[in-house]
Structure formats: structure tokens, C-alpha cells
């Protein structure tokens, strides 16, 4: 289990991480989503032991990560711009990883290379961006570590390859309890594979919870109400329902509400609406709604 407690990280005067706390359980597929400059990569690098937090601690299975080879042997970090030897081949990079991860599964690696049609003797600097990402994922999977940190790894992959990698992940998760932590902007992809998400914004964590639970807790309601309906007054009196976002188009009202579906349904039923329907939200819609609450609204970005 990865325990992040009150972690803050500064770069000179810039606060990249602000008092972050989160837990990542074993066997979870944790999706780390966040706005631009939220601190996703910084957090990933801190978890990987590349950087030391200025405040707080990050522990894996009860031990500090930083400068702890025993703990770091459980982690494989794939950065957003992974380094390979300038004139190296996949074979040569494998040799490097095998030294530091002695349990590296060489036959599996070679097999997967063949499946993905990557030439092990070809210079990596001739690979495309997507091919390099694929290669990074293979190294991560074959290293046999417990935790796999992927910083925007999926972003360079074509749709078919994404599905292939997802399938690999799922297989690893099922077979040996791999715990991937995936940072990405691609919320649609994360939605398919993650079961737990954390949302970063301006160095702080907005929430970190189970995806299904999150979806159960936030809903989109479309309704048409009679002119004398005052749903604001209704919602004000209801603590278990929070209005996150409101959008009117003619008589069609679209509301994003935090609360249980049953409570929302019964509340609006009492207003005798002309029409209402509760719709599930995508992760993207949840992301937008949550960040809007904290002032990160795309409408503000449009001049």
C-alpha cells in the first residue's frame, strides 16, 4: 500500500504539491487526473523516489521510499519522457533493467516484443514516440515490480495499442496483483481501466476515491419544470444534495448534483416537474464539474 501523508514539494518559490494525502491500496488501478500544472508528474516522481518531498512522507508498505532500494525495487517508474541510451537497442536497455530488477522476465519481454512487432536490435532513437511508449510499458510489465507508475504513458498510443496495453495490465493485475498508478489527461481511457481516481488541482488533491462510488455520488439531472418551481429553495433545505453546476437552455434545465440518486429523484419528484431524468456522468464531466467548483472553468479561459 502506498501512503501519502501531507506531502508538499517546492521548487524555489513555487509550491508544486500542497499538503497532499492519499492512499493507494494494493491491487487498485489508480488513475491520477489533474489540471495542467496540477503536480501530477511531480507527485509521480516523488512516489518513485526520484525527488524528496519537502514536507510529509510517502511510504510503501510502511517504509519510506526515498533512498530506499528495498522499497524502490517494488516500483517501476515510466516517466512522461522516458530516457533510453542514445544509440541503444531494446536489448541493451533490457540489460540495464535486468541489472537493477534481477527478476526481470527476459523470455516474456522478448515474446511481447515480437507480439508488438518491435525489433530488439533496432536503435531506439529510430522508434516513433508511440513505439517508445510501448517499449516502456513492456519494460515496466516485465520487471516484475509490484507497483507500476505510468506518467501519461497512454497518450502516445494508438487506439488499438491502448487496448492491447490495457489488456496486458488487466492480465498482470489478475495474475500477480500489479498496482498501476496512471497519470493521464485522457479521462475516457482512464475510466475504462481505473477503479480508483485522484484529482489534483494546483498542487492540492481535490478528492481521491473509488470511481464507482464517485459516479454514484454525482449525477446529471435534466428536467423541465413549471414556471413556479423554485428548485433552489428546495435544494437549500437539503444538506444531502449539493448543486454543483447549472445550465439552462430554454426550458430545459441541466443540473449537476452531488448526492445519492434516490434523494435527488425524490426531491425533484416533489416539484412535479414536467420532465426529469437522471443521467450518469462520465469521468470527464465529473472532472469538469469538480474543478469548476474550484474555479477552473473553461468559460473563464475563453476570451
Amino acid at each position, binding site marked *: 500500500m502506498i501512503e501519502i501523508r501531507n506531502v508538499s514539494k517546492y521548487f524555489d518559490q513555487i509550491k508544486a504539491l500542497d499538503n497532499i494525502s492519499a492512499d493507494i491500496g494494493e491491487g487498485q488501478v489508480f488513475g491520477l487526473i489533474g489540471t495542467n500544472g496540477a503536480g501530477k508528474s511531480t507527485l509521480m*516522481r516523488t512516489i518513485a523516489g*526520484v525527488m524528496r518531498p519537502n514536507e510529509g512522507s510517502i511510504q510503501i508498505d510502511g517504509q519510506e521510499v526515498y*533512498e530506499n532500494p528495498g522499497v524502490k525495487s517494488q*516500483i517501476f*517508474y515510466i516517466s512522461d519522457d522516458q530516457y533510453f541510451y542514445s544509440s541503444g537497442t531494446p536489448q541493451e536497455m533490457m540489460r540495464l533493467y535486468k541489472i*537493477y*530488477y*534481477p527478476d526481470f522476465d527476459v523470455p516474456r519481454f522478448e515474446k511481447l516484443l515480437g507480439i508488438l512487432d518491435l525489433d530488439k536490435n533496432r536503435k531506439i532513437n529510430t522508434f516513433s514516440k508511440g513505439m517508445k511508449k510501448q517499449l516502456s510499458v513492456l519494460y515496466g510489465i516485465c520487471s516484475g515490480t509490484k507497483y507500476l507508475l505510468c506518467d501519461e504513458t497512454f497518450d502516445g498510443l494508438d487506439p488499438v495499442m491502448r487496448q492491447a496495453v490495457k489488456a496486458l495490465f488487466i492480465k498482470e493485475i489478475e495474475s500477480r496483483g500489479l498496482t498501476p498508478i496512471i497519470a493521464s489527461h485522457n479521462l475516457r481511457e482512464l475510466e475504462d481501466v481505473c477503479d480508483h481516481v485522484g484529482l489534483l488541482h494546483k498542487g492540492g488533491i481535490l478528492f481521491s476515491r473509488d470511481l464507482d462510488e464517485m459516479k454514484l455520488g454525482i449525477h446529471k439531472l435534466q428536467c423541465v419544470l413549471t414556471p413556479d418551481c423554485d428548485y433552489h429553495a428546495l435544494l437549500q433545505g437539503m444538506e444531502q444534495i449539493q448543486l454543483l453546476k447549472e445550465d439552462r437552455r430554454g426550458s430545459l434545465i441541466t443540473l449537476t448534483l452531488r448526492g445519492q440518486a434516490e434523494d435527488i429523484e425524490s426531491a425533484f419528484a416533489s416539484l412535479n416537474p414536467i420532465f426529469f431524468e437522471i443521467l450518469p456522468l462520465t469521468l470527464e464531466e465529473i472532472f469538469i464539474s469538480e474543478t469548476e467548483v474550484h474555479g477552473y472553468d473553461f468559460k473563464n479561459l475563453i476570451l
Partner: protein
Amino acid sequence: MTSKISSFNIAMEDLRQRSWMLALSLLGSFLALPVTFLLANRQFLSSLHPERTNGMTPAQWLTENYYNFFNGDSAFFSGFVLIAGAFIVGICGSRYLYSRRKSDLFHSLPIKRGKLFLIQWLNGFLIWLVPMVLCTMLTYFFALFNLLRVGGLGYAGLVFVGILKTMGILIIAYLTIYHFCLVCTAFCGNALNALCSTLLLGSAVMILYGLIHSLCDELFDTFVSLPFSPEQLVWASPIVNGFWVLNLTDVLDSVFGSQTNAALPSLFYLGMTLLVLAGNLGLAYRLFVKRPSELAERGICRPSAQHMMRLLAGFFGGICGAMFFSFIVGPENALGWQLFGGILFGGFAFGVMDIIMQRSFRTFFAHKWEMISCIAVSCLFFLSFIFDWIGYNTRIPAREQIQSATVGFYYYTDDSYVYELDRSGNLMRKNSSDYLPDIGFTDVDQIYALLQAAQKFSTDYNLSGPYAAVAESGRSSYLYLDPDGPSTLPDDINSYFPRNYQIRTFTIQVKLKSGLTFLRQYQISDASRELLRPFLENDGYRENFYKLSSGLLGLPESMDIETRFSYRIFPIKEKTQISAIMEAYQKDFLEHYCLEELDDGCSPLRFSLNFPGSNYGFSLDVYETYTNTMEVLQSIFPDYPLSMKDFVQKDLTEGRSLSSIEVSLDLGTTDKGHPIPITRESLGSYFGLEGYPDFATYQLQLDEEYQEKETEAQENPENEEESGEEKRVYDETVIYEEISLSITEKEDLRDLTDFLHAGRLNSAFLGTSGGEYIQFGSGVTEEERSFPCYVKKGELPQEWIDRLLEQGTIRTYY
């Protein structure tokens, strides 16, 4: 994770990625050693002839040359490979630190940073060491093969010892530079910053020492440029020390040799070098472990390090700029240019350092106030030397502080007397950093009197009163001793200073009761030489500076006697003769040993002495007053005249050798720049004849006459006075007059040699009225070799002055 990570595998992988460094190291070592050896060996083998081997057997000859090769030539080329290698490996060996991507990879791997550092450090050392050792061994085997051919395998051990010594020195030099490069790499974000930090911080102490030394040497007239050996400080500048360590052979010889007194400073240097070397490794380790990954691709992270780099660059740049313009413009009225240079160079260096650290040209003026402060400090520092704010030139220690003193004269020349024995008992020239041994002179009153008299005069142009007049006279560059001089100068300063004074430089080293040393360089005129005599007559001075008197030299195995007036050389190898000559010389020397420093003397002969096992020659002057020596020499060479007079007399009767005496005299100008005409009176004064005023007084009178005539000429330009043989020159364009005469008649030559002296004069007080000997002209032998001839003051007969005026040719130069 059950399997353990192998450090060996990590090391091998790291070496694979640095294989280009290994290849370069191997190539460099190969060229520096086996190839250079094979080239040199051709010369060694071609010189294997009895007449070239100085009596050594071929095996001995080769052994000596191989030993010297491994300690000399090979060390030079190996040193070059070493220095380049240390920089490349130190700055580029851990270059993953300069890249964010690489840092992310290596710092995410399951290995402690300290362990990773140690593995890379060891690889960096082995990358240089292994090729060097392999190539050295290969070269050694080449040497062994050649020794075997000449039956010299028994000397193999000696050569190997030389190799070990050199290898030890090279390892220390390499690690000195390598470790410091690692330190700088650890706090820099890119290679350029690492290189600049290495060079600047690694040389800062020695740069500062060099600047202060140069400023003192240039601007303090009393500064003596040998206060201490650089070895006492160079260890604090690892980059400079890396070069210096290559000279460690002499240091090791003194540490492990018999000269224990000389060993202490060397031991200190060696100890500090090793301490700094180890300290830098520890510091580099710590910095590597603590280094934040986010430093990659940035300049220098820490603000304190940035400040230090900028300030050092600006300060050194400012001082160098001021000195550069001082050199270009000259010392007179250069203050404005010096300040301009200081501001320009200081600001430029400061700004460029900022650009390098921030990696943007826009940051040149990013720290304006800091730049201004830095430039101001460097200018103030420079001005403190210009105006001597610390009173270096004028300060002397208090009487009650003085314990003892030493004076010395020979600092800039390879003087014959400044010798010592090396640990093999061979004669060698004294180390220039050790010129003033303690002679144990403890008469505090005399020491203080000497210092006080020196302090009376100053180069400070800002002083008022008599010193301002000194400055105006144009003779203000020196300090003079004249204890009998007035405390205030008379109106006519020209009557105060002796005419055509001669000056002599000496150094005084005063040991103080506090343990400190006061060391200054002063100058004396001929009027004040007696103040120095007590020091020179001290037993300690005689023993330390005159090796003859201390018995240190022993007997030479051979000697050559050379006459200066005929350029004849007489070799002497007979032991009894050598012994007799040296015994007589010793006796004469002890009676007149102050001759070189204080007294006037003429030396018609010189000895060249050859001591066994010494690479240096040793020469002694024989003065005319050395009667015992001349007697012994004449008894050995009864048929050859050893004075010019006898020589000329003899050769005149036998009709050979001296062909002429060429007289060429110009009397120069007075102190006020008036040309001295060639007249009876001027020549009479010049040669110090009775009935004529002394030359100084004559010149004063001449100046007054010129003044009167010039005033009259200005008032009445049509009138021109001429009086008989006393021709006066009022033309302002005249520079000087010269008289010349060639004397070839044998009878005339015989007459002249009655009072002419030929040989070398001591350089102390040679001259006109200042010295006892006055140059008359040059003797020319029939082989057309010339030698200077002198006449003692007052000894030239009047008739010769008349003859010069009658028969000589007077030329006027405009």
C-alpha cells in the same frame, strides 16, 4: 524481489556506457608511454659510445636514461593525458545529472545514490589507471629487453622504483583534479557550469595569491618576491595543485632524503594535498547524495554558490583589468586608465559569469547592485596597493620587537656562492625560495639603525616637504640610505644627493620576537655602505653565503683559470696544485670577502671549478688584491704573465697579442640634462685628478654656468661667448659629446699598462665618481677579442688627458 543487485554488473554497465573515455585513455597512455619510449630509446641506443657515456657502462648509461625517462619525459606526457582525463571523466562521467530524463531514470532505480556515486567514482579512476598501468608495464618490458641486451638486468629494480615513484605522483595528481571536478559537478546543472566552477573555484586561492604577489611586486618598491614557496598554499587550489603535483619528485626526494630541514615544508604540502584530496571525495559524495534531481538542466542551484561565482569572477576580472591597463599605459599617470580597466573587465567578467549560470544573455545586468559593489571592492583593493594604504613601504618593526636579522644580495642571479649539497653530497644551486638563511646577527641597535635609515626616504608622492622635492627631482623611484643626511632638504636638492650615485639592492629579513618575519628590499648608495658591513662580517653570513669559508665545497677535481685580458684558459688537474691554489684563495678571500658586495675591485682572472658528480659549474673571481693567490698561480705558470701589465710587457717584447687600446669616452649629461663637454677640466674631474674639482661639484658648476648662459642667451640672443679650449655648448639640441682615440703604438701600450686595470669589475659601484675604477676604454687582442680597461681614480697622468684632447676625435651628437 528475491535476487540481489550486483554492484559488479552495475559497474560493468556503467563502463560500457563510458567506453569512449576508456578508448581515449588507452590511446593517450599508449602515445605517452610506449610510443614516446621507443622514440627516445633510439637516441639512447645511438649514444651508447664510450665518449658519450661519461665513463659509464652501457648498462649504467641505459639505466640512468630509463630512470630519467620514467621520471621526466614520460611524466610530462603522462601528465598531459592525466589532466585531460581527470577533467573529462570528472565533468562528463556523471553527466546523467545534467539531464532531467536521465536523472529521472537513474534516480528511480533501486540503488542508493551513494552507492551509485562510489561505483561511478571507481570506474572513473580505473578508466585512467588501468590503461596507464598497462602501458607503463609494456614500456617497462621494452626497457628490460634493452637492458638485457647490454647485460644490465640487475638494474631493472632501480628502474622499477622510478616507475613506482612516478605512478604514485600521477595517481595523486589525477585524484586531486578528478575529485574536485566531481565536487563541482555535484552542485551544477550542466557541463558548462561545472567546468567554469571547477576552473574558477579550483584556482581561486592561487589566483588571489598571484594577483596579490603581482601587485606587491609591481607597486611596492620594498617588496621581495620570495616570501614563501607556493607549496605552502597551492594545495588549497586543487586544479592548480594537480599541475603542481607533477613536480612532486623533488618534494618526495626531500621528504625521504637526508635533508630533514627541507623536508618539513614538503611534508606539510604532501599532507595537505592528500587531506584535500580525501576531503573533496567526501564532499563530492555528500553533495551527490543530497543533490536534488530537479537541479538537472539548470545552472547553479544554490544562491550562495551563485553569489560566490559572480563575485569571484568580478573581483578577479577587475584586478586583472586594472593591471592590464597599467601594463599597457605604464606606471606614470595611469590611475585613470587603471580604474577604467578595473571597471570594464570587472563588470564584463561578472556579467559573463551570470550569463553562464543563468544561461541567458539577458541576465548580464540582472544583478546590477551586486555588480557595482563587486567592482567597487576590486577597485578599492587595487587602489590600496597604488597608494600603499597599509604602509608596506614605510613601516618598520619596533626596536623592542626585533630579535635578529639577515641581509642578502644575490637573489636574481645564479651566483657562485649560493650553493648547497644535495642528499648525495653533490653540489647544486640553492633553491630560490630559500635565499636568506638565519645568520644569527642579533645586534638590535645596528639592525634598527639600518631600518631607520631606510625608512627616511619614501616613494610616497603625497608626502610634503623634502620628499616632495625628491619626487620632483625625478629620482624618486628608490629608497636611499643616508644616515648623515639632513632631516630637511636644502633648497638645492642637487647638493644633497651624491652625483651619479650608484645604488645597490639588498634584502633584509628581520626575525621578530612574535615569531613573524619582516622582509623588505631596500637600496643603498655608495655613501652608506658601511651600515651593511657589520652584517657581512658576521660569521653566520660568511658560513652561509660563502661556501668556501664553511669548508662545504671541498676540493674540486679540476679547475680552469681564465684571464680576462687575453682570454687564455689554463686547465689544472694536478691535485697538489689545486690544493695550493685553493688554500691561498681561501686566505685571500677571508681577508677581502666583502669585496663583491660593498667594495670596489677588479678581477683580471677567474676560476671555473669542477666538482665530482655535480651538473653545475662553479666560478670564483680572483681580484688584484688577492696577492697570495696570484703568487701561487705565478709559481705554477712562471712563463705566463697573469696581470695585464706583465702580459702586455711580455708580449710587446715578443711582439704579439695586444694590438690596441680603443679609448671611447662620453661624459653623459648633468642631472639637469645638460651635456657635459669634452674639455681638460671635465676630463680632469672625470678621472679624479688632483687640482680639479670632483666630478659631482664640476657638474654643479656646469649646471650653473649653463643656467647663466641660457639666461643671457635669452636676453641677448646675438651675443655668443667663446673662450679658448673651453668650448661651451649651448645648443639645446646637443645630446652629448664623445671623444675617441685608438692607441696602437707599442710604447704607448706599455706606458698605459702601468696604470690600466683589466678584468671584471664588481657590479656594486662601478661607475664614474661613485666607484674607485673608471672605464677608460677597451683592449683589443690580435685575435680581435676585446676586454674592458679601467683606471683608478686619480692615477691617469695629466699628459694622457692632454694627449687625448690633442689626438682624439671629438664628436657631437644631436
